[in-house]
């Protein structure tokens, strides 16, 4: 005999549970061990389409926090506390996640991976006067007309031109096939910039879009073959990228496949391993860069990752350094520079200090454009995926 709980009891129980949970939820953000703290918000996706990349970015930030856990404000040493929220890669959940950071009274926000959620959250941060530093969101709209949003990475128009120039310079490509996901602003945007740049260089382009949730790319690869493409440009998320690579391999596609920074991930390496497909992507950082700061960062980060199995899982099950982790690290350090320079935990003061920051990060030197808040970056690294690792090909700039 099943016991049915009466409705009244259910209402009472749920009311009590809600009250208890409210108390638990409200009184969070404690745990400071005495002494002053400054809070830095981490606004990243940990689930949803961009969950994987978001987790890797968070790892970079957390590692930076372990390297530099305190900051000097006006002579006093403040402990830096990270407040992490999950925006679920979705613009409607992004607003509540941003609101949570505001309610926890963070001084500066780092993130997000994914331009859409950053754009959605920007008004929330602005009305609370909290500056935000985007780590890897490359859509120009994030910083445009948002005086409180900065970014430490390059922009999509730049990235599109870089890849178009690369296709022309490296492969002498005259015909390109561009594939992006329907409804995804990052991919379609980058695709458009590539198309414009490639046409300007005198090439012809076939451009198609696939619907969300597609697993079967054999038809698209066949379309590319039929169009006589010399190169495929497919700036999409890693899930689809893995499908494209493996299916290109089984169809015997022998031309290079290129993409933007999202493809710099162990998922692509796994997909390409054992096949003869040529895969190139543009990125912000090279793991094998021999210049001092990057080398130290890579060694330290790998050691920190390998010490904890959960962190290894979040990084995709291995210790390959993702470029977004390096960007997360740089964003954190830049934030610390600005906080120290501002001499306070007030958002507006930090924002003003950010404009004047000049920091040498592991992804290059970071200074911000005075009008938009974009980092002045003019170089991208091109990497090739082969045999389970990324090998550095060249650095590419845009001519003119």
């Amino acid at each position, binding site marked *: 005999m099943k016991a049915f709980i009466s409705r009244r009891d259910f209402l009472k129980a749920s009311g009590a549970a809600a009250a208890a949970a409210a108390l638990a939820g409200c009184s969070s953000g404690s745990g400071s061990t005495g002494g002053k703290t400054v809070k830095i918000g981490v606004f990243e996706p940990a689930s949803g389409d961009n969950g994987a990349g978001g987790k890797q970015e968070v790892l970079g930030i957390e590692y930076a926090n372990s390297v530099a856990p305190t900051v000097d404000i006006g002579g006093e040493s403040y402990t830096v506390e990270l407040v992490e929220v999950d925006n679920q890669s979705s613009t409607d959940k992004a607003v509540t996640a941003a609101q949570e950071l505001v309610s926890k009274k963070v001084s500066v926000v780092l993130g997000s991976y994914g331009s859409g959620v950053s754009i959605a959250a920007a008004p929330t941060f602005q009305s609370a006067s909290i500056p935000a530093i985007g780590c890897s969101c490359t859509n120009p709209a994030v910083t445009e007309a948002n005086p409180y949003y900065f970014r430490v990475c390059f922009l999509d128009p730049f990235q599109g031109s870089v890849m178009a120039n690369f296709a022309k310079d490296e492969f002498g490509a005259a015909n390109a096939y561009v594939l992006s996901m329907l409804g995804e602003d990052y991919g379609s945007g980058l695709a*458009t910039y590539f198309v414009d740049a490639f046409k300007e260089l005198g090439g012809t382009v076939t451009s198609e879009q696939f619907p969300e949730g597609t697993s079967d790319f054999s038809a698209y690869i066949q379309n590319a073959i039929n169009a006589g493409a010399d190169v495929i440009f497919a700036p999409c998320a890693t899930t689809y990228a893995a499908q494209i690579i493996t299916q290109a391999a089984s169809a015997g596609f022998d031309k290079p496949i290129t993409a933007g920074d999202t493809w710099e991930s162990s998922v692509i390496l796994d997909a390409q391993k054992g096949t003869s497909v040529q895969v190139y992507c543009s990125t912000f950082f090279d793991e094998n860069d021999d210049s001092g700061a990057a080398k130290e960062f890579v060694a330290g980060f790998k050691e920190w990752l390998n010490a904890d199995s959960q962190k290894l899982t979040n990084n995709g099950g291995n210790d390959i350094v993702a470029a977004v982790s390096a960007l997360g690290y740089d964003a954190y350090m830049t934030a610390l520079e600005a906080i120290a320079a501002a001499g306070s935990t007030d958002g507006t003061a930090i924002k003003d200090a950010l404009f004047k920051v000049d920091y040498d990060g592991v992804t290059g030197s970071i200074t911000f454009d005075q009008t938009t808040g974009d980092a002045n970056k003019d170089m991208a690294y091109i990497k090739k995926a082969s045999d389970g690792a990324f090998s550095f090909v060249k650095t590419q700039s845009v001519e003119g």
Partner: protein
Amino acid sequence: MKQEKKRIYLRAALALAAILAVLLALDNLSFVPSMLLTVLRKGAIYALVAVSMNLLNGFTGLFSLGQAGFMLLGAYTYAILTIPAAAQKSIYQRYANGGIGFSIPELLSKPLGGLGLLLGVVFCLALAGFIAALFAFLIGLPVLKLKSDYLAIATLGFAEIIRAAVVYEGFGPLTNGSNLLYGFTSFSSFSLHLGSVTLRLETVMPFLFSGICIGIILLLIHSTYGRAFKAIRDDEIAAEAMGINLASHKRMSFIISSFFAGISGAMLAMYQASVQATTFKSSMTYEILLIVVIGGIGSVSGSVIASFLFIASSEWLLRFLDNETYIGGFRLPLLRSGFRMVVFSIIIMIVVLFFRKGIMGDRELFQKKPASAARTAKKEVRSK
């Protein structure tokens, strides 16, 4: 009887005004946690769409899974009409001549100031609902005569078709294709100036709009149309035998439900301050369906209560489950990102399996009990 009704309406209006007054205070007092306000706003928006879905599924018995598609239409219509003309060039930057070139609230607020802004927004909301209703009419023509399960899949299919069509590059100059629409009039544009004091109306406005819309739906349910809908739900053939035109009543229910779903979609756009088609997936429809079921199919107050509970639990109260928590150096197992949604899904399964009727079943919060009707009858007899 008319006096009874007038009293009920007056009481309802006073209750709404009281709620709005409380919210006005909450909006402007500094110690109120901003998360609470955010959850209240989102809860109000979802309350409206849950009630509209309840109207269709619970009161008319038409199992439709297309709500997200109508919300999408409403959201895009509203956004397109209210982006300020000056910003349109940069928002539609990938499409030459993108945008419609004007913004309705802007046009009206020039001559009429704050009132013009309000009128403009109300007009755009109504238009958003109207476009959604128009599509509902077109979709309903082939689909409404299908049986319940087929209707569910057909409406789900239509929602997917709409989502793909809206982001089609060909419509880019109007809808901005795959890119976000942002910068349009949102709730934060509303404020009340009383002399030197400026009162923020960010939480009051969604409640005001939702309250009026839910009020209209309640009026509908308590009218002859509402009784016809319930008859259709209980037994279609008997209803037809009693002279109710099945096709036109089903269509009416579908169109009205979609109208309010469109308005709530527009309000969701105002809340998020940005619109992107990919968020209006079928999973959003499932969430609304779960809210309706948890609140009780056939109960408007149940949907409203369940909506606030659902939003509060999923976005606020359970967030601590996502963070790695240490108790004195010992890390609690299981608590890492993703755990919140697992716990939430388990709670939903428990509610669905053990509390089948939902919180309110099919009763309303302030329903007249039959006993009191008998008492009033006795009173009337005695007073004669």
